[in-house]
């Protein structure tokens, strides 16, 4: 009990302390190692949280089935990314894209970001969750702009403006939730505590809840990157350092989605409130189809995979919007798989861009010849991300498509269409990147392949076999999501 609570605290405090420390310490080797170490400790804490029994929900913090999934995933990917970032940043220092000061700043910000995301996940208080997500957003804004090139600044600026509008909308939604709550629960802190809300939501004013959900969907949807609120996402991914792109795609989007899910639960628990499904389904479909067409004209490799993140967020939102045990299960699975796969892809892409000295797709060819590990890793990742077996995303897409077509055939058509169009684009680019006459530098890459192949290995394993506890747990969550 106590131990478990300590674990929660640790999940929050370790990154915070590390951030403070890293902000002060100089020197690449030390800080990079420290970064990895901190991430690793957090991971241990998270695992103890997962295995040990859970603390009672307090007024501020909460651990339940839903967020434990996110927490573990979040911290795990955070750890692997820190390993990747160590070797990545080393190269950036060599070619002088990063000065030591910025390096310090980078590592500190990295830990702050981890802290913010963990806080958002464990928060039992809608206000606190909001604060945490905004903190995460602002941190990433600063990191996206870290290279200080024109493009980077422009991307950061765009991200910042859109993000803060999202902040505002989400805050308004949160206020509305409070206003809906306080006639029932009474004034004060309780009216913002998640567990209390979910108990009494039946008596809330449905109209206020609907309004609140609209604002929350748009506010947090901006972070999820749903079209047409996605504009910040591609450029932020393309211009920031690659580890940040990995974290953005792999984690931040999930955290925002998690917030949306929380409020979806609220609405679902209130009989008169509008069904949140159709909104999410339509936004998901729009994002999916839009992004899959946008994939075709991309010249920048990182921007392309950013669009593919939009596409997959669309699929996940669609799945949760459909609801039902199968679709929800698929949604959760897809989210986990997408985090692992997409970050693995970004690991590969980061090294590729460093080796070839360009992010321009047209200038990269024949990778499987020149850099077999990177090349085949990329092929593996793209195959996984396009939902081909025997990898995890295939299972989730299988479940989504089949269950949708059985229930709402007309919705399945655009879904399948989008999937196919997106696959066409990704495969087209992959053909150029991985095969054909090699071009560009053939210098060996001093890369850390471990994180990438660990992720891909997990994805492969999950595509074939899911351990029963995981399943039971997913199914519980899926049932809870209704």
């Amino acid at each position, binding site marked *: 009990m106590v131990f478990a609570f300590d674990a929660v605290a640790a999940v929050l405090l370790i990154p915070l302390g590390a951030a403070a420390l890293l902000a002060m310490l100089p020197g690449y080797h030390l800080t990079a190692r420290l970064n990895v170490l901190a991430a690793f400790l957090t991971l241990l804490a998270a695992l103890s949280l997962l295995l040990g029994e859970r603390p009672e929900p307090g007024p501020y913090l909460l651990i339940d089935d839903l967020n434990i999934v996110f927490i573990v995933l979040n911290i795990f990917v955070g750890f692997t990314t820190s390993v990747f970032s160590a070797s990545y940043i080393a190269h950036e220092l060599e070619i002088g894209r990063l000065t030591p000061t910025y390096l310090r700043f980078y590592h500190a910000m990295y830990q702050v970001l981890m802290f913010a995301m963990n806080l958002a996940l464990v928060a039992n208080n809608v206000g606190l969750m909001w604060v945490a997500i905004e903190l995460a957003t602002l941190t990433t804004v600063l990191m996206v702009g870290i290279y*200080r090139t024109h*493009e980077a600044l422009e991307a950061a600026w765009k991200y910042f403006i859109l993000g803060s509008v999202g902040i*505002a909308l989400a805050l*308004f939604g949160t206020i509305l939730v409070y206003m*809906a709550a306080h006639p029932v629960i009474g*004034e004060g802190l309780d009216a913002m505590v998640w567990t209390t809300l979910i108990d009494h939501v039946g008596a809330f004013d449905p109209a206020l809840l609907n*309004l609140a959900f609209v604002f929350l969907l748009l506010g947090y949807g901006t972070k999820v990157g749903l079209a047409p609120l996605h504009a910040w996402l591609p450029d932020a991914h393309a211009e920031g350092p690659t580890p940040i792109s990995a974290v953005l795609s792999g984690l931040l989007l999930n955290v925002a989605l998690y917030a949306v899910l929380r409020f979806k639960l609220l609405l679902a628990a209130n009989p008169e409130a509008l069904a949140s499904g159709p909104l999410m389904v339509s936004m998901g479909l729009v994002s999916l189809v839009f992004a899959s067409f946008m994939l075709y004209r991309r010249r920048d490799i990182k921007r392309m995979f950013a669009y593919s993140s939009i596409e997959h967020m669309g699929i996940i939102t669609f799945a949760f919007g459909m609801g039902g045990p199968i679709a929800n299960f698929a949604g959760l699975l897809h989210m986990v798989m997408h985090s692992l796969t997409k970050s693995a892809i970004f690991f590969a892409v980061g090294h590729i861009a460093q080796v070839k000295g360009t992010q321009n797709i047209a200038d990269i060819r024949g990778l499987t010849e020149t850099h077999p590990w990177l090349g085949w890793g990329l092929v593996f990742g793209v195959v996984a991300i396009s939902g081909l077996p025997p990898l995890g995303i295939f299972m989730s897409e299988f479940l989504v498509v089949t269950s949708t077509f059985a229930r709402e055939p007309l919705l399945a058509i655009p879904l399948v269409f989008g999937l196919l169009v997106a696959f066409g684009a990704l495969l087209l680019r992959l053909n150029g990147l991985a095969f054909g006459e090699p071009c560009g530098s053939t210098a060996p890459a001093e890369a850390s392949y471990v994180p990438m192949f660990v992720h891909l290995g997990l994805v492969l394993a999950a595509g074939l076999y899911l351990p029963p506890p995981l399943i039971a747990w997913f199914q519980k969550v899926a049932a809870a999501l209704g």
Partner: protein
Amino acid sequence: MDGLAFDIAHMLAGGLVLLSFMMLYQDRLYALLNIFAFHALVLALSVAWQAFIQDAPHLYITATIALVFKAFVIPVVLHRIIQRLGIHREIETVIGIGPTMLAGMGLVALSIAVMLQVTPGADPVAREDLAFALSVLLLGLLVMVTRRNAVGQVVGFMSLENGLVLAATGARGMPLVVEISVAFSILIAFIVIGIFLFRIRERFDTVDVHALDRHRGERQ
């Protein structure tokens, strides 16, 4: 007493909406800034009034924050920036005043229509306030959308936040968390905006967002 309190709160909130309309109406930066300062002032008043009628002293803090930061500091700083950049002469609305005003009308109507569905069970003050707050928010967004100039967009953004504050204070007994977060967000917003304006001037010598678009990736 209640009736009066209600009326005053009502009046102040209405005043905010009116000021937002005036902001829409401005096409010069200086004028825009001045209106915004006034806007913030009225906001501070209404927050204070809420603090009074809810006898929630901590709201006075919020009022002061609004007063100091929004009514004085920010407008002054932005004045400086405008002078330094010498863009005070620019006409920078995207679409004509007329259509903008019409759109504003529509937005206010919309927010009221949405709010009317809320059952009167929730206390009327909150409900009316919320209607106004929502319209202030939407108008602020409209300002952002119709302004070409970064400064204009910042102002629009902050009037939007005023709407938020209005709503937050309208909600009876909303915990401190919220105010802090509001202030916090404004603070961060201001700082980072400052940083960016600074960098942007240093690099592009203008704050016109168009300048940024020329450096967009993939534009070949």
